[in-house]
């Protein structure tokens, strides 16, 4: 899956570069070049199976999560240090969300939701370091996350309720004539879930980073007036910090909503 995405990204970048034969003045950056997956040590078709920039930045996201949640809380101080209180805040934030949305019987699935949240938020925030790589901007990465949630939730629903899980599609409050139509709509919207779930995250991160690079290109073209796009980049960067957090929050929140539908499927 990751290799498909890598080849797609590399293919699009090359495809664009080939028909972009026009010479630009100044320094010339293409906004989509930053998403190309490149192996570090080897090239050719085997290279995509070795360490690439995507795997490195995903591994760094996991490493940062471990640093934040395991290393800083090792002291177990009653009065937390700054790092420990960050870890406790993020734990409490996700715990409260799971409890509020799915109810008390959803707490059993809190570790998975917490893992998802920490990975996505760390990957998003690390991607904001200049010249770094954004793993969550690739649909290959977010689609795996979303499909795991989709299949996990569907299997959980059938295991918990058997065929009663299909009551999710049978809107019992609606008039009897409308119910088959509504069932069809509910069924379609159920299967669109992983698509919108993954594309929302990937699209937001990719669009944000592409916008930053587009403005960086303006800065190169404007010469003396380069400070105007640089100020704009500063403002957009602040927005992107917000987006990095909100998209992780939205992804996890929707995971909780899907989980609630699986645990309580009656409409």
């Amino acid at each position, binding site marked *: 899956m990751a290799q498909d995405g890598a080849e797609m990204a590399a293919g699009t970048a090359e495809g664009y570069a080939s028909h972009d034969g026009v010479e630009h003045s100044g320094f010339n950056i293409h906004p989509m070049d930053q998403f190309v997956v490149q192996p570090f040590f080897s090239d050719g078709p085997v290279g995509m199976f070795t360490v690439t920039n995507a795997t490195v930045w995903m591994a760094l996201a996991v490493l940062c999560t471990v640093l934040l949640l395991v290393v800083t809380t090792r002291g177990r101080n009653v009065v937390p240090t700054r790092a420990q209180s960050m870890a406790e805040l993020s734990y409490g934030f996700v715990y409260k*969300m799971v409890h509020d949305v799915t109810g008390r019987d959803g707490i059993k699935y809190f570790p998975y939701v917490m893992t998802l949240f920490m990975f996505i938020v760390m990957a998003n925030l690390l991607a904001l370091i200049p010249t770094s790589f954004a793993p969550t901007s690739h649909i290959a990465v977010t689609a795996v996350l979303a499909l795991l949630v989709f299949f996990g939730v569907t299997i959980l629903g059938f295991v918990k309720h058997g065929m009663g899980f299909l009551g999710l599609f049978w809107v019992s409050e609606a008039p009897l004539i409308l119910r088959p139509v509504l069932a069809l709509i509910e069924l379609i919207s159920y299967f669109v879930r992983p698509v919108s779930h993954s594309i929302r995250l990937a*699209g937001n991160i990719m669009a944000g980073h592409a916008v930053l690079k587009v403005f960086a290109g303006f800065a190169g073209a404007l010469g003396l007036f380069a400070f105007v796009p640089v100020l704009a980049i500063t403002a957009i960067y602040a927005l992107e910090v917000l987006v990095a957090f909100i998209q992780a929050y*939205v992804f996890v929140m*929707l995971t909780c909503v899907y989980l609630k539908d699986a645990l309580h499927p009656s409409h």
Partner: protein
Amino acid sequence: MEGDIASMGQFIGAGIAGLGAGIAALGVGNVAANFLSGALRNPSAAAGQTATLFIGIAFAEALGIFSFLIALLLMFAA
């Protein structure tokens, strides 16, 4: 200018698809505006509804992201 009529159609189509992203912004603004007007009427109930606000924004935004994706597919994959 160079290029053929097919790539012209492709780029025009990408531009039209990009309009959808702007229209989705209307939807997101509508959600936020209605939340704000409701929150100002009853501030004590507002804090409990921020999760619903974000879910509403996410759903409104998803369709805009879809049209952005169509634009990208037309530009780079078609």
